[in-house]
């Protein structure tokens, strides 16, 4: 590893200050992603500000404001705690399933909610420093565009970057319209809807998100909803656990009789960000919850996919997975 300075932050304000003052500094939370990347020389911070002692891990019901009645997850809470908290299990089982579909027990015990949202792509060309990668070294080229791209994007990619965002948690959050609460150098809190938090690679694939340097994720807010009865997180992967998604689907339905009042669908493993399947959602609202309608919605969404040389299967897999996830959601987790 490159030499770096290490500071244990005393409080949020000083942590943010330290980071803002140094463009090459990084927050260290659970370290499960950042340290791996430093060992591989992909991330090269010259200073780490350890925020793991700041608290900010509470899970509680929101009592005021726009998301009143929803819940708030501390930005530094552990993935395991978030997945297993009774409030989450009862009101947002989709989130529990998504978190537990990710990584391994040991990693989830270390990994924080904020860190999970900011984990970096698993593209192998990003990971190996001798390879070209515009995300790692802007202007160096994209190794995956004409290379091995079975795991890569089918939506929203650019010639500069075809990487996908690997988080499962974020896919469920996208479906649940979560809001990310961040704190900036001036001490202000701001709320960023998850749809505005992530971005497509475009000409600046080095930027994964729209979060400016120096801002600290303090909480994730989940608006109140009526999806708890009918939601499902489906993760299709090369082995049954401890693998990143080929395609994942967070599906949630609110029905009246057999009519769909609200549908939420977000896809993972297909784009540079959690992919909200808005087209499919719109097609479902007001319709009967039938397999035929699920199929129509799925194919409408997947029709826009632009597969690469090795991942055409993701289009068919996406189609099938959306349908299966909706069926599973409708039946409370069973087919």
């Amino acid at each position, binding site marked *: 590893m490159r030499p770096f300075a290490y500071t244990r932050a005393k409080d949020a304000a000083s942590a943010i200050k330290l980071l803002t003052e140094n463009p090459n500094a990084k927050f260290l939370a659970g370290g499960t992603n950042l340290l791996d990347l430093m060992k591989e020389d992909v991330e090269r911070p010259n200073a780490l500000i350890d925020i793991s002692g700041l608290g900010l891990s509470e899970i509680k019901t929101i009592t005021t404001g726009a998301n009143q009645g929803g819940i708030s997850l501390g930005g530094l809470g552990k993935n395991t705690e978030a997945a297993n908290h009774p409030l989450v299990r009862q009101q947002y089982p989709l989130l529990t399933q998504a978190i537990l579909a990710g990584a391994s027990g040991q990693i989830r015990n270390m990994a924080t909610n904020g860190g999970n949202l900011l984990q970096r792509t698993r593209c192998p060309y990003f990971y190996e420093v001798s*390879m070209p990668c515009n995300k790692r070294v802007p202007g160096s080229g994209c190794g995956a565009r004409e290379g091995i791209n079975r795991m890569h994007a089918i939506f929203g990619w650019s010639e500069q970057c075809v990487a996908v965002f690997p988080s499962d948690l974020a896919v469920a959050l996208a479906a649940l319209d979560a809001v990310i609460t961040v704190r900036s150098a001036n001490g202000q809190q701001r709320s960023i809807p998850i749809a505005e938090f992530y971005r497509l690679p475009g000409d600046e694939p080095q930027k994964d998100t729209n979060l400016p340097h120096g801002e600290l994720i303090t909480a994730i807010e989940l608006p109140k909803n009526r999806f708890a009865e009918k939601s499902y997180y489906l993760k299709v992967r090369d082995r049954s656990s401890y693998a990143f998604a080929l395609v994942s689907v967070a599906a949630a339905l609110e029905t009246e009789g057999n009519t769909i009042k609200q549908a939420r669908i977000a896809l993972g493993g297909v784009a540079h960000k959690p992919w909200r399947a808005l087209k499919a959602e719109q097609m479902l609202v007001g319709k009967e919850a039938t397999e035929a309608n699920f199929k129509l919605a799925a194919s409408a969404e997947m029709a826009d996919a632009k597969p690469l040389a090795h991942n055409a299967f993701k289009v068919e*897999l996406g189609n099938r997975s959306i349908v299966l996830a909706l069926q599973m959601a409708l039946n409370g987790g069973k087919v």
Partner: protein
Amino acid sequence: MKDANKVIGTPVNRIDGIAKVTGKAPYSMDHPVKNPAYAILFKSTVAAGTIQAIDTAAAEKTQGVIAIITHKNAPKLNVKGGLRGGSLLQSPEIEFFGQHIGIVVAESFEQARYAARLVNVTYEAKEPKVDFDQLAKQARVPKDKEKADLKRGDVQTALSQATYKVEEVYETPIEHHHPMEPHATIAEWNGDRVTLYNSSQIVNGAQAATAATLNLKPEQVRIVSPYIGGGFGSKGGQWANLALAAVAAKHVNRPVKLALTRQQMVNSVGLRQHNRQKVSLAATADGKLTALAHETTTHCAINDEFIEPCGDCSKIMYDTPNSLITYRVVPMNLILPTYTRGPGKSTGSFALESAIDELAYKLKMDPIAFRIKNEPERDPSNGKSWSSRTTVQCLQEGAKAFGWENRKPEPRQNERGNYWIGYGVAAGTYPAHQRPTSALVKLKRIENRVMATVELAAADLGTGTYTILTQTAADALGLPVQDVKVKIGDSDLPPAAGAVGSVGAASYANAVNDACQKIIQELVDKSGKQFYVRPTAAQLMHSEKITDYQTRVDSKPLASSEEYSAHSFNANFAEVAVNKSTGMIRVNRFLAVTGAGTILNPKTARSQIIGGNVWGIGMALSEESVLDPRWGNFVTRSFADYHVPTNLDIGQLDAIFINEKDDHVNTLGVKGIGEVGIVAVAAAVANAVFNATGKRVRELPITPDKLL
């Protein structure tokens, strides 16, 4: 009564188990040495070409760096000394991506790794040969005589005349061994003798090859390898890192620790090659095989050849008048392939046993009945009698235990919820050999207790060598197991075979048995007495008042063993559940039935078999090392990308051993189980996937995308 006193054949707990789980068993990096320095290798980032310049100035200036060694200042080594894979820093030529091009030695591992990043290398790169699909058509006849074309009868005519036939190509990808303990060495010089703490499946082989490479005499090199954190073939032949650790230690005049990172493992210590196997089978309408051809195309290194014997199972599994086994190979800019668990047989059986299943399906025959119908009475490849053969028993006992009668012959007939359920079977084999091995037995009497120490340069891969040798000596000496100590894994001990090719148990246990029998005989002779009941070592030491006694044997295979064809055999049964929508597969149940002669310890044996099964399931469903065909680098460099099975992928595992006694193979009747456990596993799973879904996947691994 007498057998009830024997510990051979009983499930004695692993002798080394507690040391391992309490962290007391020293693996390569754990041996205490004074004031070690830390070395890291750095590697080429092109697959073909020449190094033009290596700029080490920045690296040398960083904190803690002691030395940097490259081809410019490395000592002259013997590249033909027997270490595999080249990469010995002897020239600026690059033959594969990730070839070692230098060593950084520093005060800490982190400092060494950081400095290695700062080395600036410029290459004159050449277009690498790494695209197997492109290159396969240039494949040539192998240099290895054992891979020469093997023809019996006339396969072509038999194929052209047959109504029932299968002619298909089966692909198995590059795989890596990835033992939990990556290759690591501590090198410590003492005068002109070097001790290398290095886990080695062949202790004496590692010694010989390293000595020759370093231009030393064998006795100037000592290999210490009491424990091995897995090897699977990658620690059989040794690789450049072993000699380079010695070079680095000499250079800095200090003990040096040199460990490979997980990412470096993909191009440092061999791999299982990509095999393209064409299998052609023909049969009569009533299911008698008339032709079997198994033609393998694969790759080797630019300047060295290794080919795993994919056609081996096809040589002996089935009775057919016409047979053809061939190999073709193309050199590529990739590290030398090497032995990998079940070399040739695990991958070859995938092709053969898939084809057998395909043909049985066409014939509308039960695949077990089809196999039994073509059971050969003698070894078809050489006409020898079998020392014993259990294929039919394995198939029949397995069918009963597994509930084969519940299998639906047609695919897509068995469903459970959103899953297709399928059953598959496959049969396999692995040769049984014993290799020359010496063993020293020492007896010591202290007051009322007689203790034995057995010493030989054997290896324990984590498989149970310590345990079975303790059991063997205890029985032969008539001592309780706690009074027997086994010392292995050190080239200063009497020379022994390697723990490779399933020869370990047979070679070691027979040598230890011979040595113990000999010591008893010598003590009896010494006493001048006649015994009607065989005395124990303790009785003899007491009655003759001896405090110390030792003897050594140089044990060899039975002279008669060459007259027979000796192999372990198995039959594997798999039940899979395939998600109808997503193609995700789970192996619900897997049963391995094995005939491997005397089972010395059913507990360690079972672990061996189910361990092999798990890797075989990985081979079937998820393991694949993916090369970028433009640059020759692996994109699957860690366990995040190289998918070994997880607990959730695998349901219930069961192992049954056929109760057989093979008197021809060796004195103890031991055949070996390490390799056969992975043979015919992938095929059983693939056949089950076909039975479930009706999709025949001929290209491993069977990932979900292939079932859409």
